[in-house]
């Protein structure tokens, strides 16, 4: 017998009450139609589930299923949503249709194991900072990202896409200005298949993480050595049950294993082999490869938790990549060959320091080895980067505080030959020896305090850093205020000063800089938010202005720190969830000017007086992402993105020399590439097999309309003709599946 939810009956004796009842009836006639909803809840094998709570979403009214899984819930408005929940199962939403005799069939799937409880000291509530958080699921559910975290971040407002890579250019800042942390340890090489504009994949697999926090500006004093943004990646916690996952797709295969060790430990391991030959067979690339991009990576982590000693997590990652691809640059056509090794290790220890404070120490480093040949460019690169941070966080009542110290040590050794003129891989103007043996360290201390008083949350912080190579000490004050306007609306103002050491690539012993000051920036951010990120409706708009100073700049006397610049813009992010649609809209406008020289562009262009648009100035970008649940099993997602093309410097002629034609460049970045546009589709199916096995099948079409986006211009040998460089990523189909077994 089904169990019926009932409402208490209002007493009705007096005329007044009769009148009220009558009024209620009249109001009721005008109110949405209500229905008595019946239904049945079963598990994935079809067996009825007893004791399931079926709640009318947004209210405290609910029914409980009987032994046959049946339930009845009276007085439910059409269009309302019911949520069926049972401990051990994933909650399931069901929408009541316009049919008054609604009958719902709900299937609950066995819930996966949750990660261990995150440990936090007292957090400021609400936070004064504006942070976007992504989980691995968010990444794979975003079409066109190829399950890559960096590509998913590219869909956020404030991040400009300037080529086919995954480099994060944030609010008019260079890709090198984003600090990437993994469990508190700096990831100095966060991209695979590295290029001057980032790389073609993120180095960290999103499935190694429990989430990523991305701050696009105005971040607090706890983060140093970064001018533009912070990407803070949190590794997975201690596994609470044994889980084995095998994934296979057109681009490769991977396997992972996780298991608890006793009641307080855990271990994780994963291997991934990229074998893209099948992918390229299905999706022929217009680019020529003499060695298809490929490689492997292996990772593992060990976690131990003790109430007395705290928790310790050690994560290691090893990657190998190679590629041989034809490249067009100016009038040069040739093959780029690259072999890369990357190792990362991160250890994090946390322990309570009294009931309200949490002590954290992170230590680790990454080691990067790369050999590259492209025309006359031949380089062997080795870089070792070690970092550590220690912090104490906590508070009481309305106060929250954070104090700590951090530091980096970097050893860079690069040896080889490079074109005398930046980008001249044919060596028309000659080549020269290139040698970097750069040692540098930085150490910083920081303190942040925040206080909530009524609707006001204020945060103030200060950090001081010592940059060894430039023998300077910098002091960065930062502050932000968040005011709750009520109704889930708030405004935020943030201002701060930021410093970052210049790239070691500037310190070539042959022609490079001897000393460069730490680069600096000042951020001013004004934001308005409505709703909460996890709610049904959320919107955020932020306007900002950034001023840059002490940027590396090359003139006839060589490199100096005389560069400067600014950027200003606005970012909009809107997210709305309906029962059959999850829609995200984003947009950005940006105006940026700089006077600076990227390391790889030395001696390439004639620089004018004043500032110019940097390569990453994208005046506008717009994106829309829609996720549609087709059925309980299938999910469809689509995305559309468009943006202004990036600026480029046109060749306006050439001078014949003994070695060939040397280009004559027009005004720097005086022309702009065509508009970028892309549509991606993906579909996934999730099913359970028995009680312990989950299978996910996925398929995608990237660049659905096959648009040939242009990210570069190439020239004929005498620079008399110009042509757009063909995209290496035309329309591409992808299929794969992932099977997880939990014990």
């Amino acid at each position, binding site marked *: 017998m089904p169990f019926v939810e009932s409402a208490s009956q209002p007493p009705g004796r007096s005329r007044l009450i009769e009148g009220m009842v009558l009024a209620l009836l009249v109001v009721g006639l005008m109110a949405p139609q209500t229905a008595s909803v019946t239904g049945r809840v079963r598990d994935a094998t079809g067996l009825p589930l007893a004791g399931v709570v079926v709640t009318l979403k947004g209210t405290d009214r609910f029914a409980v299923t009987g032994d046959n899984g049946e339930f009845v819930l009276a007085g439910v408005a059409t269009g309302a949503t019911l949520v069926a929940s049972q401990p*051990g199962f994933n909650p399931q939403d069901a929408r009541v249709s316009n049919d008054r005799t609604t009958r719902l069939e709900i299937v609950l799937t066995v819930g996966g194991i949750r990660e261990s409880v995150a440990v936090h*000291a007292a957090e400021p509530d609400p936070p004064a900072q504006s942070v976007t958080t992504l989980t691995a699921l968010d990444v794979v559910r975003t079409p066109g990202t190829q399950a890559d975290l960096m590509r998913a971040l590219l869909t956020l407002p404030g991040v400009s896409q300037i080529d086919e890579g995954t480099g994060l250019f944030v609010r008019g800042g260079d890709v090198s200005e984003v600090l990437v942390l993994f469990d508190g340890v700096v990831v100095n090489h966060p991209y695979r298949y590295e290029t001057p504009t980032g790389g073609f994949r993120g180095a960290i697999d999103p499935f190694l993480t429990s989430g990523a926090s991305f701050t696009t500006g105005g971040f607090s004093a706890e983060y140093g050595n970064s001018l533009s943004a912070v990407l803070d990646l949190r590794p997975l916690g201690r596994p609470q049950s044994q889980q084995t996952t095998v994934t296979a797709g057109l681009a490769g295969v991977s396997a992972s294993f996780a298991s608890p060790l006793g009641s307080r430990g855990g271990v994780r391991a994963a291997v991934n082999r990229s074998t893209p030959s099948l992918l390229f067979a299905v999706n022929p690339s217009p680019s020529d490869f003499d060695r298809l991009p490929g490689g492997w990576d292996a990772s593992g982590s060990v976690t131990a938790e003790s109430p007395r000693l705290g*928790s310790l997590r050690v994560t290691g990652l090893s990657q190998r990549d190679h590629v041989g691809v034809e490249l067009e640059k100016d009038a040069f056509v040739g093959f780029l060959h690259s072999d890369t090794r990357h190792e990362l290790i991160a250890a994090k220890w946390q322990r*309570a320091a009294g009931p309200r404070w949490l002590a954290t120490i992170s230590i680790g480093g990454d080691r990067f080895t790369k050999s590259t040949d492209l025309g006359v460019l031949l380089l062997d690169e080795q870089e070792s980067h070690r970092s550590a941070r220690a912090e104490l966080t906590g508070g009481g009542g309305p106060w929250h505080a954070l104090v700590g110290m951090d530091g980096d040590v970097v050893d860079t050794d690069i040896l080889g030959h490079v074109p005398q003129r930046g980008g001249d891989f044919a060596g028309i103007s000659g080549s020269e020896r290139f040698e970097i043996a750069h040692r540098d360290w930085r150490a910083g201390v920081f303190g942040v305090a925040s206080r909530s008083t009524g609707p006001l949350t204020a945060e103030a912080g200060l950090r001081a850093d010592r940059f060894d190579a430039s023998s300077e000490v910098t002091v960065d004050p930062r502050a932000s205020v968040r005011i709750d306007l009520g109704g889930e609306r708030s405004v935020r103002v943030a201002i701060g000063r930021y410093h970052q050491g210049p790239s070691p690539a500037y310190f070539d012993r042959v022609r490079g800089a001897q000393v460069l000051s730490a680069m600096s920036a000042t951020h001013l951010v004004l934001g308005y938010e409505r709703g909460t990120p996890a709610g049904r409706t959320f919107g955020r708009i932020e306007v900002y202005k950034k001023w840059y100073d002490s940027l590396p700049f090359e003139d006839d006397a060589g490199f100096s720190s005389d560069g400067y610049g600014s950027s200003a813009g606005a970012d909009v992010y809107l997210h709305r969830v309906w029962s059959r649609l999850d829609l995200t809209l984003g947009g950005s406008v940006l105006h940026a000017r700089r006077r600076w020289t990227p390391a790889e562009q030395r001696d390439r262009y004639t620089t004018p007086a004043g500032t110019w648009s940097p390569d990453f100035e994208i005046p506008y970008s717009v994106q829309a992402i829609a996720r549609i649940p087709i059925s309980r099993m299938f999910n469809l997602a689509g995305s559309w993105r468009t943006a202004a093309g990036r600026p480029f410097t046109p060749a306006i002629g050439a001078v014949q020399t003994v070695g060939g034609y040397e280009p004559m460049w027009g005004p720097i970045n005086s022309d702009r590439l065509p508009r970028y546009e892309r549509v991606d589709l993906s579909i996934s199916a999730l099913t359970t097999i028995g009680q312990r096995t989950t299978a996910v099948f996925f398929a995608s079409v990237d660049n659905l309309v096959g648009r040939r986006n242009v990210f570069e211009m190439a020239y004929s040998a005498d620079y008399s003709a110009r042509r757009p460089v063909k995209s290496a990523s035309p329309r591409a189909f992808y299929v794969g599946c992932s099977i997880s077994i939990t014990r």
Partner: protein
Amino acid sequence: MTRTMCLAAILVTVLVPAPAARQSSMPPDWPQVTGQLEQAVLGDDAAGVRRARTDLLRLLAAGPATDRAALLHYAIAYAGWRLSTNPAVSARERDDLLDDAETRLKTAVKLDPEFAEGYALLSGVYGLKINFSPMSGILLGPRSGGAIDRAEQLEPENPRVLLSRGIGKFNTPAMFGGSLKDAEACLWRAIDRFAVESPAKPFPAWGRFDAHAWLGQVLARRGDKAAARAEYERALEVAPKSGWVQFVLMPALEKK
């Protein structure tokens, strides 16, 4: 205070029934359902606890008045708390049950801010969460302490409050306020109060078994095997089928 006055105070505390508002308007099925729940708990009958929890949910779905909703939420949370320690329950279900129990107990003490037993069980729920994820103790430890402090303020001689305090003292590391000595004192006091609690007391009347089982563990850790064994046997007198005492605690004691 003289011994007689102390005894009188204790009797007044434990024999006076729970506030009338909590019991007077409970549904007719209430005694039967809660009786079945406690019978299933003591009989190590997970399916029975699950059934009783479902029956309690149905009583709650019927839309009880506010004054009885607090006790209904408490009873559902109690059933979930008990189920979560059953080895047959998956880690996910365990976590969901404890989350549900936490939410319900917070609701219960919000509906009835004087509900000492609600605070005491909430402290126990936090304790179990910490047990399953020790690092969460950094966050939940103070919350557990705050809940049991509030329970003690309201009903310092309630045996389930004393039991919860004793379990907490036993499981908390010394550096965070745990103490074997304090745990033993609390559990002895709880046993004293249970001894004078009316057998006809309506739900919640659980805890005798737990007090003996936990006191046995305290004594075992103190090295008094004979006394520990005696406490385990007393626990088995209350719950003869307890797999936890028979197959976990007793064998562990013999290995010492």
